[in-house]
């Protein structure tokens, strides 16, 4: 096991290098340049744009730029944003709290809702409860977040006036008021994201539980006279968790990566909004840093998922 882990971690290094190379080349080839806004301004002579391109080393061959980036990255220098001329790590650090808070809570909410609902729905498939749960799930993933977000804003901010819809990272209040304000402004984004996520989780959990609930060993466990809740938790859920773990492992990196659309709607200063504005402004160093950290997390959580599979089902061997 330890051996396996070590081997996987060692393999992770070249695989991340490969990913970073591909990301870099892709971003370099992608159309657009960071000085587009300057281009449509007649007041700014083209020489200034040329000078900026040279200054930011954008006209060098891709490989030269990649090696330069990699060496700097190894030394802990993440580069600086073309748009704000601020160091990229500073920018990312500024954005992490809001993302962790909103997206993290939403993921947690999704899991807390989805697992019990999915299990209960699967226990009695096609019961009233199951039907209701399903219908909500369908609504959940057939309406995009840009739409549900706006709907909530119209109801709770515009009509009722209960909640603010502009998220602020710098709330002035102190003590309980600070907590209250932070809670209030997070309610809508967390709901939108959490329910969208919960909708698909519920469907997966339900399906996974249905796959095992009819298996013989469950019947055996029941016939042994085990308590129903114990059967469900110890025998059914644990075995049904493999797809769920896979999905959660897939979603965890987005807790860092943020949720682009939702962050945009509620103006949450998270990583997602940083990424999208960087993409729209072709601010390559920022895009590269964010996606690379994201890639590291993807690889890491994939590894964690593999290890969890072994724990959930000891027969899965590590080779």
């Amino acid at each position, binding site marked *: 096991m330890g051996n396996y882990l070590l081997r996987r971690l060692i393999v992770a290094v070249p695989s991340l290098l490969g990913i970073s190379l591909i990301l870099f080349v892709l971003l370099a080839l992608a*159309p657009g340049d960071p000085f587009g806004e300057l281009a449509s301004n007649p007041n*700014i002579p083209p020489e200034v744009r040329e000078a900026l391109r040279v200054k930011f080393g954008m006209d060098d061959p891709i490989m030269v730029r990649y090696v330069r980036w990699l060496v700097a990255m190894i030394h802990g220098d993440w580069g600086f944003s073309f*748009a704000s001329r601020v160091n990229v790590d500073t920018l990312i650090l500024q954005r992490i709290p809001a993302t962790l808070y909103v997206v993290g809570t939403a993921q947690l909410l999704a899991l807390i809702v989805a697992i019990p609902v999915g299990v209960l729905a699967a226990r009695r498939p096609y019961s009233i409860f199951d039907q209701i749960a399903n219908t909500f799930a369908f609504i959940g993933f057939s309406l995009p977040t840009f739409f549900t977000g706006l709907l909530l804003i119209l109801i709770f901010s*515009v009509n009722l*006036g209960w909640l603010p*819809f*502009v998220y602020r990272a710098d709330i002035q209040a102190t003590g309980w008021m600070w907590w209250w304000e932070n809670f209030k402004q997070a309610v809508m984004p967390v709901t939108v994201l959490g329910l969208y996520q919960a909708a698909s989780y519920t469907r997966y959990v339900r399906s996974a539980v249905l796959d095992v609930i009819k298996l013989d060993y469950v019947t055996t466990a029941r016939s042994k006279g085990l308590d129903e809740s114990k059967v469900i938790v110890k025998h059914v859920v644990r075995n049904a968790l493999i797809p769920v773990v896979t999905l959660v492992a897939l979603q965890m990196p987005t807790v860092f990566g943020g949720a682009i659309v939702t962050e945009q709607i509620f*103006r949450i200063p998270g990583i997602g909004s940083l990424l999208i*504005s960087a993409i729209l402004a072709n601010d390559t160093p920022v895009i590269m840093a964010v996606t690379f950290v994201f890639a590291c997390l993807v690889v890491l959580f994939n590894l964690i998922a593999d290890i969890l599979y072994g724990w959930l089902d000891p027969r899965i061997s590590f080779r």
Partner: protein
Amino acid sequence: MNERDLRSQIADVKTGRLSRREFVQRMIAVGLTAPMAGAMLAHSGVVQAAEPITYKPTKAGGGGPLKLLFWQAPTLLNPHFANGTKDQEASRLFYEPLAGWDADGNLVPILAAEIPSKENGLLAADGLSVTWKLKQGVKWHDGKPFTADDVIFNWEYSVNPDTAAVSVGSYRGIKSIDKIDDYTVKLNFKQPTPFWADPFVAAYGLVIPKHLFADYIGAKSREAPTNLKPVGTGPYVYVDFKPGDSIAAKRNPDYHQANRPYFDTVEVKGGGDAVSAARAVLQTGEYDYAYNLQVEDEILTKLEAGGQGRAQLTVTGHIEYIALNTTDPWTEVDGERSSVKTKHPFFTDPAVRKAINLLIDRASVQKFIYGRAGVATANFLNNPERFRSPNNKFEFSIEKANQILEEAGWKKNSSGIREKDGKPIKLVFQTSINAPRQKNQAIIKQAFQKAGIEVELKSVVASVFFSSDPANPDTYPHFYCDMEMYQTTMPQADPQFFMNQFTSWEVSTKENKWQGRNISRWRNKEYDETYKQASSELDPVKRAALFIKLNDLVVQDNYILPEINRRNCIGLKNGMVANKSGWDNDLWQIANWYRET
């Protein structure tokens, strides 16, 4: 409209037969800017009559927080690096220029003690120099005095090529600056400069302190801590800045204008989209001001019905226009399409261009898309009569267009598309992705279809369309299609830079990596010569007449079809009083903003 017409109108202003404001509006209608109109009047001896800026509070402070919402978030606070207006606006909280432009195009002193003019002797008759007297007793936020050294430093800072400042366009015409005394500077220009009020004025004229930036000139410019923590002379003092998200500022207790500013703190929030920004000001009143509300008028009106705020519109020089390609976008010559060596297959026929012009339903576009935020432009100046009737509408007539095409020999073929000599009128029409533009495309396409012209619509994401990437064929300067539409901005008070976009040396080609500004590749000898004349003409009236001629030369050839003169729209919460100008930033008078109780 020629020089004589202009002179007679100026005479009318002098005698009071024509109001100053109306004169300015007429000049805008011919494609000139308000500041140019102001310059003409000043030159002809009509006194600068800048309307005093309304400000009622009798003491500084006490206004509570001022909450500003920018859907495009400011990313940096050094005005010399401003990537766009959002950064300029944000810098305006902390930094100030020597003077700004008001809505009627008058120069209003801010850090200057007075505005240079021929009368006060500060403006040289040969156009080679101008002298600025600085306001005394102005302090930077750290307590150091503001002096002539700071002004000189900004010029040095900006023109240093290693600084890579975006403001360099305004400063590179300066040969040297003489320090007359601590509060007087004399700018010497490299050549006679009719538009002397460019450096140190308005958006690109914000002055940064020498004592904090002197160590960070040139290649080190990025490392200056004050890039993110501004120390200026402005009405508000820096508290906090998160790039791309928010700015916090507090009142400057030592501000150089008495009883100002009114608000105790300023909170700037960035991000999101324009519609929800409008919502936050007009409908829920969460914010006091929203920037650049590019929102359909229909939605704005509904939101205003919420009763919390209103949209305020100001005239600008921005023109939404359609360009027809003079070259052939579908034939590759020497590795580039739309090469100047080719000719467009059917736009070369003036009848086709004329018909197309008749098929653009400007009135409906104005009425149903832009509403208050755009006016179908009256930039067709065929004669003075039209000019005298500002309500003159463009002609939109499918029948006439059909008739013209029919007469010119473009007959409908079996599939209903007009063709001549085997060349059908089929065209690709591109623009950037932006809801009003897509609707505009749909309206145009429908009219074209009715006249037997087939249109394929194409929309390109704005970050690609407006980029200067030489490798991407979808950018607007490549113009690899028949027809395109976008807004050409007039960020400057003077149209000289603006009008160079139709000179033959600005043609966008592979050779200049598509950096040239002449997108339609329209070339005209007379235009080139008139332009050269205009750029050295010192008499503002003669110069204005030349610009009007330039304008007429372009639009009468029907390759360039102006459509809508855009208005700048901001959202203001009820009670907010904000002096606004279309020739300067929204926040140009932020010190004088206040809330009526």
